[in-house]
């Protein structure tokens, strides 16, 4: 092998295999990474500052835009933090609806992941399929919330509109379809030599460092640690539903893919249970006139499990009709910066976008 001198390479800031603009400054020797420095800032929209200038309800028009593939967990986490501050009960039906929405959001996000993960390995067919099928979930969202990507549906006190029986039937039908389709996806992905060879042993997160590094979600479960906010700190009605938290060993892209593959099944199962168990009743505990709604003084922290891991919101009220401070932290905040910088050295340039996708890096969420 010819010893090559170190060169600097800028990866990005176009979408480097992930959803959002981000740049990674690489020191490479040949096509091996020696050092990686992340650069974010292409998607900073000052959402947290803007939220401070709007009323408590207005915030959710911005929240969902924190991370494009996963708008709903943001809405839910914020809503839960505000409900804690305001001592606001959420009707049980609304809690079931929230769970269904959350799991549908996970499913559609998994499908984007299928597309991104396969696409960054060169398996484009799978991307076409899963993004096409994702539209069936977006159709469900459209019917429920009126919007396809940004739903602005979960808000403090409950949800915005009630679900109908016909919608529930449609959800169940879609679940049956997706369950069958996942076998097709897996045939193209997990049974595929190309994917296996690309994924195994690549982008390893060391097990002993994972929690300390702030690794959450599937990457953490991919090192064999059973950690999931839905189990550790159950919210809504997750404690009334029966589901498994899959883990895998190895900490590589392959392990994370296996975890997601199984979680896809679990989400379908959760949706079916939630639809079956959903009680009748109110879907919304009305908040006062939003322009005059004053949330009592205090601070609250809420966290939710998204597809990429835990999402946390720190919400502060100073007793006025506007939030005093809202600070959000998603999985990408650690995965996309410090974790990425640690595991990239020694990897192949061609694998970088593959690894980023597997870690669930979502730049708009890092800088908001």
């Amino acid at each position, binding site marked *: 092998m010819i010893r090559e001198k170190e060169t600097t390479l800028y990866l990005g800031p176009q979408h480097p295999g992930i959803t959002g603009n981000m740049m990674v400054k690489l020191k490479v020797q040949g096509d091996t990474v020696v050092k990686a420095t992340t650069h974010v800032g292409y998607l900073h929209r000052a959402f947290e500052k803007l939220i401070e200038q709007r009323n408590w309800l207005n915030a959710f*028009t911005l929240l969902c835009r924190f991370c494009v593939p996963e708008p709903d967990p943001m809405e839910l986490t914020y809503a839960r933090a505000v409900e804690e501050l305001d001592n606001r009960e959420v009707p049980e039906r609304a809690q079931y609806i929230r769970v269904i929405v959350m799991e549908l959001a996970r499913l559609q996000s998994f499908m984007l992941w299928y597309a991104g993960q396969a696409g960054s390995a060169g398996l484009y067919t799978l991307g076409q399929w899963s993004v096409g099928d994702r*539209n069936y979930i977006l159709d469900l969202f459209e019917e429920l919330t*009126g919007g396809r990507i940004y739903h602005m549906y979960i808000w403090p006190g409950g949800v915005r509109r009630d679900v109908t029986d016909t919608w529930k039937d449609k959800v169940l039908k879609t679940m049956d379809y997706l369950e069958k389709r996942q076998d*097709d996806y897996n045939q*193209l992905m997990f049974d595929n030599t190309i994917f296996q060879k690309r994924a195994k042993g690549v982008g390893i997160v060391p097990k002993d460092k994972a929690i300390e590094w702030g690794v959450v979600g599937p990457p953490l479960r991919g090192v064999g640690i059973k950690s999931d906010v839905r189990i550790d700190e159950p919210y809504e009605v997750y404690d009334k539903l029966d589901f498994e938290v899959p883990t895998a060993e190895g900490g590589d892209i392959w392990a994370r893919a296996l975890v997601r593959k199984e979680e896809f099944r679990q989400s379908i199962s959760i949706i079916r249970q939630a639809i079956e168990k959903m009680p009748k009743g109110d879907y919304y505990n009305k908040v*006062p006139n939003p322009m005059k709604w004053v949330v009592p003084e205090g601070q609250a922290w809420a966290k939710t499990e998204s597809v990429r891991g835990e999402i946390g919101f720190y919400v502060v009220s100073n007793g006025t009709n506007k939030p005093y401070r809202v600070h959000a932290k998603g999985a990408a905040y650690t995965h996309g910066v410090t974790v990425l910088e640690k595991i990239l050295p020694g990897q192949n340039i061609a694998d970088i976008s593959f690894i980023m996708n597997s870690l669930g890096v979502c730049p708009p969420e890092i800088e908001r």
Partner: protein
Amino acid sequence: MSFIDLKGILQPLGALKQLGKKPHTIQFPAESIEASDNYRGLHFNDLDDCIGCGNCSTICPNEAIDMIDLLNIKEKKGDSSLRPRIDNGRCCWCALCVDVCPTGSLSLTKDYIFVTEDPNDFLWTPGIDNKDAADKISYTSDVSTSISMYDRVPMRELEGKERVKSFAEVVLGYSEEEARAEAQRCISCGLCVEVCPENMHIPEYINAIAQAKDKDALRIIYDNNPLPEMCGKVCTRLCEDVCAMQVRGDAVAIRWLKRYATETAPTVELIKEIVDPQIEEPNGFSVGIVGAGPAGLTAAYYLALKGYDVTIYEAQAHAGGMIMYGIPKYRFPLESIDKQIQYMESIGVKIKYNTKVGKDISFKEIYNNNDAVFVGIGLQIPWNIGIKNEDSPGVIPAIDYLTIINSDGKFDVGKKVAVIGGGNVAIDGARVAARYGADVTILYRRRVEDMPADWEEIEGAEHEGVKIVPQAIPTKIIRNKEGKVKGVEYVMAKMVAQDGGRPRPVAIEGSETIYECDTVIGAIGQQADFDWLPENYKEKVIIERGKIQVNNLRQTGDNKIFAGGDAVKFGNSDAISAIADGFNAVKGIDKLLLNK
């Protein structure tokens, strides 16, 4: 894993089986998908239902909505005649504007394709620029899905059975928590301000209450109403009729909120401390006021603040006029009136009681000794019912009956009472009689929904056991041998629609009925008494059909004489209109004497 993994190479080829399947995609433009029934597309606004409250514009997180004057919208009460215009370059289709629209006029449609090369085209007015979208409405809000607060915080009241035992105040008032919750419902549009004869700063004081700043609320109220305690209890609250919330729900309880604000200052000292009235240096002018009713008191208060030397001449032993003598104490207790009068006197208003103009003092004297005169005499002479035997003992006008009772006098109404009329005075008479243990029935010419009395009063009367016989026209009083009232004969009426007016009652022949009773209370209105006014003044002042003619500044034909209240032909005959007259007369007097 061997280098060549045959299974791993062959398995993905299974994808080829998809080749024979029908694609899920559609052929554009040959095929199109209709958006769902709940889709959040471009806006549509029903211009007739819209009242221009601007709530959509206030909530919009992107400042995408402007309220603009369309000019072709007819100006009417309870409608700002402004309509929303959307900047579609800013809109994020969150539909909060739809969810807070109190009338439900604003909605989103299934239209989502809007292409233009000129950015200025993004500004357009829904309902005008997309008239055809009316049949594509998808995302709407109804009373249950809207986030407007349509339900009023209920007012606590004494039980009907408890009430008739005494003259204790029926309405108990809002607690602090209730008041805050009710005040939060207000969307601060201000449509109510226009219909209030006195144009009180309603959105501001309600907002102050919502923000727990009760003292500021009281200050704002006293800015143009010196009798808020009275208004907080017995105002006819025209404001609530045009409240944006009232379109699909309950109007904000503006009157009760004002009442709540006044209750936070239970003593004269507190009122003075909170309102902190700024009294100007004496300006050397003096004003004489005839009658210490709401109009006279209001004029006196603001004149005194401006440094005038003010004296009120009141025929009765108490100030307050009709609110003192005409309103039963269960609606407006004596302490409340006294407190308001004491507050007035504390800032320098002088009141001469038991001084009837024309008897104890001549009008000429007042006229000559003062730089201006304000006349607020009200209406004291009841109209006759206009039926046979009306002069029999046992027939009494409601206003006389109320005055006797409110002056601590006695009037025995017997066991059964008939009240004739449908206004607040009739209901007052009926409810007072009920408190003396009488079985009371109200006879009214039209339907219950036509009654000019407040619905709360009607409901209150019914809860207290008062019966209402609608569409009943009295024809004569039946007397007993001694010539006293024995009953009243009436005929039933049918309602006949007529062009350009409310339905007219027409007697049904042969439907004569006799209601036996001991007393008949007539309450079909009053007129003013002008006997005290010397002829030479009467000529200049101009009195037409029993009412004094005034201009906007409440100035009469004699430019030194101003007038207001029920005796003036201007607006409604209620206390708040009288207050407005007093307030505006102050401006007129200022203009006359200081040329301001």
